[in-house]
């Protein structure tokens, strides 16, 4: 990961200029549809997220080093609800345009993704979808072809309405917030990092699925390693240890690819010998 350590917090080209117009923002709303186009269990939506803001980043960062820093930085782990993504886009693009420190942008991005993910899942996957789908299904059971048609229309009015609205709303909000806090970037960076790292700590405990499925039969006494040993020591112990271990390997200069290989091997071996 030595290359990523070359991401510098300050931009080389510090000139602040308003370059994004409505058309740019709208274009990026369309691109946001591909948020999950490179979904994977290491970075989740990281790739699609980068993809979705590329036009903006290119217009903002004419300096090549700045652009490459921004791309690399955004290409990290990212995951939120796909319908709320344009809000994050809006806020982040306003900050990029204002040439906020990378540290601040990163902190805000990480701080937003967790809560919006949970809220979005509750609102759309667990509410909007069953409601529209359920009504459509009750129409369809009566043989009414309007069911599926109304479903697609109603669902997507909300869906696309939100995408466009949230982009502009987020951008406006970001611009205003950024103006107020401009003079104290150092302090804002720190605050953003605090929230961001708190959220990452929470994500480590809730997103990583690392449990043993291993019961030792000691004579006649069964000992469930996960529940009776590991959880007794600390819930979320393995996720925490494995994250710290990966972090340490990265610091030691190991490549992320090696870590992925290692993880796959662990999964396969653990599954093969039957303890996971």
């Amino acid at each position, binding site marked *: 990961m030595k290359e990523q350590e070359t991401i510098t917090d300050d931009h080389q080209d510090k000139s602040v200029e308003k370059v994004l117009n409505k058309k740019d923002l709208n274009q990026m709303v369309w691109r946001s549809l591909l948020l999950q186009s490179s979904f994977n269990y*290491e970075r989740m939506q990281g790739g699609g997220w980068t993809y979705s803001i590329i036009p903006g980043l290119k217009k903002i960062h004419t300096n090549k080093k700045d652009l490459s820093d921004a791309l690399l930085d955004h290409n990290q782990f990212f995951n939120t609800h796909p319908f709320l993504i344009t809000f994050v886009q809006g806020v982040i693009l306003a900050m990029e345009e204002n040439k906020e420190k990378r540290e601040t942008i990163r902190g805000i991005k990480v701080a937003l993704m967790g809560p919006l993910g949970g809220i979005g899942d509750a609102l759309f996957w667990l509410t909007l979808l069953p409601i529209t789908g359920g009504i459509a299904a009750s129409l369809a059971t009566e043989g009414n072809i309007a069911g599926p048609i109304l479903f697609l229309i109603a669902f997507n009015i909300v869906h696309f309405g939100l995408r466009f609205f949230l982009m502009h709303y987020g951008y406006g909000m970001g611009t205003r917030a950024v103006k107020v806090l401009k003079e104290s970037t150092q302090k804002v960076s720190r605050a953003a990092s605090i929230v961001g790292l708190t959220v990452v700590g*929470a994500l480590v405990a809730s997103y990583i699925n690392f449990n043993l499925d291993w019961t030792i039969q000691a004579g006649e006494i069964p000992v469930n390693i996960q529940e009776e040993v590991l959880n007794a020591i600390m819930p979320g112990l393995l996720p925490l240890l494995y994250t710290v271990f990966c972090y340490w390997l990265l610091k030691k200069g190991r490549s992320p690819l090696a870590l992925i290989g290692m993880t796959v091997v662990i*999964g396969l071996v653990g599954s093969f010998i039957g303890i996971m």
Partner: protein
Amino acid sequence: MEAILVGLWAGIAGIDQFVGLTHLHRPIVTGPIIGLILGDLTLGLMAGATLELVWAGMVPLAGAQPPNVVIGGIIGTAFAILTGQDPDVAVGIAVPFAVAAQAIITLIFTAFSPVMHKMDDFARDGDTKGIDRLNYIQPVLFFIFFFVIAFLPIYFGAEQAANIVNMLPEWLINGLSVAGGIMPAIGFAMLLNIMFKVSYAPFFAIGFVAVAYGGLPILAVAIVGLSIAMYDYFMNDRLQTSAPSSGPVKEDDEEDYSDGI
């Protein structure tokens, strides 16, 4: 011919499930479409409605894949029409295919990590075209995958197809999905690699403890984190104010921010 059309529609729906999300991939929509293709719109409509309700709560949360709704909806409807069975029976036929698709998608999501590192390289070079191109791979892959999975059982009949599905050893599928579950650790480690400082460790720890022991949802943790950050922010203000003036803390200064946020 009909099998090809079904496959094509499955490919489109498969893409829509992850990219686009217009939700034309839901059984309520794919049902009547398959009905049209196979010549019985009404039955397709009914089967789609039944399958929609079956999949009502099975949504992907935090990346975890439920039994695949596209394959379940399409194969379920198709077999209901082809065999003339009741839609309720069709569900039973559809489920094993939906579970197989779920497993393979999980596998694809696991195996796709390395592409991200290629993307890092493009990012380093500022090659946005390259990044764009990489982002088109998975949708194409999914098109092919869903085409095949939907085409085969219609073409060969369900029993034959099920045999092929059962050839994969279970430990392999399970192992890859276990690996997929652990994988986010790498993503977080990379985030830490660029965000972490020793002086930030307390905040990471608080977030971890709040979820691991307290079972709080992420939003609650974010509020707590924000509260700490704000406290710290205003404390910094006071630090800076107190230093030069050597005077007592000036509370009133804080007011200035009140309309800003």
